[in-house]
């Protein structure tokens, strides 16, 4: 059976070149970077080369890069680490309702257990946040603003540079508020130059950019203080102790390098495929709705709701045809809650339950899109036939 993997926002395959770069460090180069001997030095050099590479790509200095175990850890270290270390400066955090759970749950923890307060900005109906909203939410005690760069579910690209610019002006000579962005979904697609983005802290990981899972990085502007989450070593300047994931770090740097190299060409190619799929579905299947912004959108993200049916049932049908996608339906989530991102768009629950996300990748072809456009309408038709629900067009638009 033909297999079409369209869940690249969840995980990407390892790039063969990345694999090749990693291979020696899985076998021959096993030294501990902290050891004082030749194999140890070799591993340490490899880490430092990777650090320099990543720093160069994002316009930072090598000592501003901290390696972690992935996006979730980067985000936790950024938010918990900064909030705890700078508690005396203030206890207010601004974020959005459409962050990844790694951001939301971490901030909720601070609210619940550590006497912080937070403002959760609501996006507009397309999923976008404006600098004005941040401005309005700002208080003297605001120490941290955390806004996702590109949304993992609906692909909305936030105006990070404009928000960052505003924050920079606001704080004048003060250190706070600092600006963190979760760039995990954006890392392979957008320009990550931290100076142009005016961000102070930035989180990325390997598994969304054709790199390995279990590795991430945090950019932390020089001079900012973090409280580490774990203790027991001097690695990563003591901010992230523990023997480094050498092979992962090498993979992450290589993956970011390739993704950033390819991005202009690949973005153009994917945007055409994306728009073809979106237009094809909206035109050929009735009672459908695009979630997210039509253009301020990741080039590989398609998120469409099919009214009167439920997303998990759709996924199962697609899976049986070798098409692998994702849904914001409650039924398909372990928590049995519908997607908080789609709900934040101010739409009825049904829109989340009936949502389907395709995220395209480097292997996605024109033929794949044609195939989906061919097989999807009868599946929707069949599920609508056995559904008792008939919402009106006006209800969800």
């Amino acid at each position, binding site marked *: 059976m033909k297999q079409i993997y369209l*869940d690249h926002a969840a995980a990407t395959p390892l790039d063969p070149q990345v694999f090749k770069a990693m291979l020696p460090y899985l076998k021959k180069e096993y030294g501990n970077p902290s050891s004082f001997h030749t194999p140890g030095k070799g591993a340490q050099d490899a880490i430092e080369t990777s650090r320099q590479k990543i720093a160069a790509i994002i316009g930072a200095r090598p000592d501003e890069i901290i390696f972690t175990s992935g996006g979730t850890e980067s985000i936790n270290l950024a938010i918990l680490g900064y909030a705890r270390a700078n508690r005396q400066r203030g206890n207010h955090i601004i974020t959005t309702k459409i962050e990844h759970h790694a951001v939301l749950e971490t901030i909720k923890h601070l609210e619940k257990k550590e006497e912080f307060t937070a403002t959760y900005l609501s996006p507009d109906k397309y999923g976008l946040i404006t600098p004005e909203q941040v401005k309005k939410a700002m208080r003297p005690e605001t120490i941290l603003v955390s806004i996702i760069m590109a949304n993992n579910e609906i692909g909305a690209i936030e105006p990070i540079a404009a928000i960052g610019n505003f924050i920079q002006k606001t704080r004048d000579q003060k250190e706070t508020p600092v600006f963190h962005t979760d760039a995990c979904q954006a890392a392979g697609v957008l320009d990550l130059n931290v100076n142009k983005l005016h961000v102070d802290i930035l989180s990325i990981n390997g598994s969304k950019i054709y790199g390995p899972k279990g590795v991430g990085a945090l950019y932390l502007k020089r001079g900012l203080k973090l409280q580490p989450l774990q203790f027991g070593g001097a690695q990563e300047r003591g901010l992230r102790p523990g023997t480094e994931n050498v092979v992962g770090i090498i993979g992450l740097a290589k993956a970011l390098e390739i993704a950033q190299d390819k991005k202009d060409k690949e973005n153009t190619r994917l945007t055409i495929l994306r728009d073809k799929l979106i237009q094809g579905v909206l035109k050929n299947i009735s009672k459908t709705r695009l979630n997210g912004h039509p253009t301020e959108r990741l080039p590989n993200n398609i998120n469409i709701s099919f009214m009167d049916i*439920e997303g998990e049932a759709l996924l199962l049908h697609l899976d049986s045809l070798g098409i692998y996608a994702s849904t914001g339906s409650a*039924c*398909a989530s372990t928590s049995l809650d519908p997607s908080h991102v789609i709900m934040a768009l101010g739409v009825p629950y049904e829109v989340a339950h009936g949502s389907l996300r395709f995220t395209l990748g480097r292997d996605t072809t024109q033929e794949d899109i044609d195939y989906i456009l061919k097989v999807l309408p009868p599946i929707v038709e069949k599920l609508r036939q*056995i559904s*008792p629900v008939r919402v009106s067009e006006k209800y969800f638009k």
Partner: protein
Amino acid sequence: MPKYIAKSSRGAKGDVASHDKKQSWFYSKTVKNHFFHPRNFMDHDPKKNEHNAMGKVGSPACGDELKVWMRVDPKTEKIKKFWWRTFGCGSAIASTSMTSVMVTAKGGMTLEQARKLKPQDIMERLGGLPARKFHCSVLCDKALRDAINDYYRRANQFDKIVIEGARLIDPIAKVTDHDIEEAVLEGAITLEAVQTKTKVGIGNPEVLPAVEELIKFYKEKYFG
């Protein structure tokens, strides 16, 4: 763990995103079969004279909605025909389909037998469901009981209607034992999780011991 919990979900969180093409599917073979080949669904506009009872449960907002229609033989009170429509996930569709087969098999269940059908019976026939999909099969038997009441209502046998009384646990938040049962079925097995879902006892802490008791009861009932 009881039989009606699918093996694959024991101890595992289970997510509809993992794939192992070799053997396992998210659900049992029987669930798969009923999902891809649903039996007895209402594939036409329901006609007035073909059914004499209707039941409904859920709403699309909460993720599942079921509608069922039955034709009951008034002499024997056996279910002769059972049609359905379901908005919901794979297990909700398969559960309704299986229910339709079970209540009409061998000349049909009597209404009295059908009323005794438990969600566990449906799940067992399906070869088990993942633990967090429990509420799907619970909905089927609710829709079925709703239809049974509707039959008696239409037949003017009001004495046979069974109204499922719910006990008010928190008079302020208007939370019943039923709501707590639902919350547990949806995976809220701690007091905190149940409170998030139902708001029970928030601002009314004296009801909390009773709530905890109920959570424990339903947890054991459904999750063993």
